[in-house]
C-alpha cells in the first residue's frame, strides 16, 4: 500500500486550504468516492500463503489452471467433489489422462464454492468463480512454475532471476511481489 509522507500530507493540506469554502464539501465527497472505489480486485493473482498458495483465476481459465496444478505437482490422481442440486455431494476420481474430458463434464461446478479437489498431500479449496486456496507443501520451483503458468495463461511471460512471492494482473498492468 502506498505511504503518504509528511511532506506530501502538508502539500495536500495546503492544496485543500486553497479550495473556496463553498466548494469544500464537493471536494471532500470526491475524495470519499475515490476511497470507496479504491479497492480493485485483480483479474489474475497467484501468491504464496503459509502452507500453500492463493489464486484468482478467470473462470474461463480454470480448466487450464487445474491442468497446470496436476502437471506441476506431478499428481497421479485427484478426487474432485462438489455439491449437487439436491444438496448431496458428488465425488469423482480422475487420473491426469482423464482430466480433460472429466472436467468438461462438470464445468458448471468448477466455479461453485462447493468445488473441492483433494490429492495425496494436499487440497484445493475455492470460494467460487476462480478464487482458490491451495494447501500443500510446495518446492520453490513449483511455486515459480505455478506463478509463471498462471500469468502465462493471461498472455504474459515472466522473466526474472529473482524469487517472487506473488503476481497480480490489474487491468492489463502486472504487479510483481517479492
Amino acid at each position: 500500500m502506498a505511504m503518504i509522507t509528511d511532506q506530501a500530507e502538508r502539500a495536500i493540506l495546503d492544496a485543500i486550504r486553497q479550495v473556496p469554502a463553498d466548494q469544500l464539501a464537493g471536494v471532500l465527497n470526491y475524495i470519499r468516492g475515490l476511497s470507496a472505489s479504491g479497492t480493485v480486485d485483480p483479474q489474475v493473482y497467484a501468491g504464496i500463503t503459509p502452507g500453500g498458495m492463493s489464486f484468482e483465476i478467470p473462470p474461463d481459465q480454470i480448466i487450464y489452471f487445474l491442468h497446470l496444478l496436476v502437471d506441476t505437482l506431478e499428481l497421479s490422481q485427484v478426487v474432485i467433489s462438489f455439491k449437487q442440486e439436491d444438496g448431496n455431494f458428488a465425488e469423482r476420481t480422475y487420473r491426469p489422462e482423464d482430466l480433460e474430458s472429466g472436467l468438461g463434464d462438470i464445468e458448471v461446478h468448477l466455479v461453485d464454492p462447493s468445488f473441492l479437489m483433494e490429492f495425496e498431500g494436499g487440497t484445493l479449496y475455492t470460494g467460487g468463480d476462480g478464487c482458490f486456496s491451495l494447501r500443500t507443501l510446495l518446492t520453490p520451483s513449483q511455486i515459480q512454475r505455478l506463478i509463471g503458468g498462471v500469468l502465462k495463461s493471461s498472455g504474459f511471460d515472466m522473466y526474472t532471476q529473482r524469487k517472487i512471492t506473488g503476481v497480480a494482473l490489474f487491468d492489463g498492468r502486472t504487479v510483481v511481489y517479492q
Partner: protein
Amino acid sequence: MKQIVKRTIGHFGVLIDHTLRPYEPSPEHILERMVYPLCRDMHDVLDRGTKNDAWDVIEGFSRECTRVSHG
C-alpha cells in the same frame, strides 16, 4: 472427514488467505467469495451435521488459526 466439515474449514482458510494478500480485496469479493460460502457451510453443519461435526469444525478453525499464528 465429512464433506460439509471439510468445506467449512476450507472456506475459513480461504478467508484467512485473503488477509495475507499483498493487496486489499474489495468488500464485494470478501462477501461473495468468503463470507457467503462460509455462511452456507455453517447452515449445512447446523442443518445436516452432528454435534461432533460442529466440534470438528471448531478444531479445524483452530488449526487454520495456528497455520497463520505468529505466537
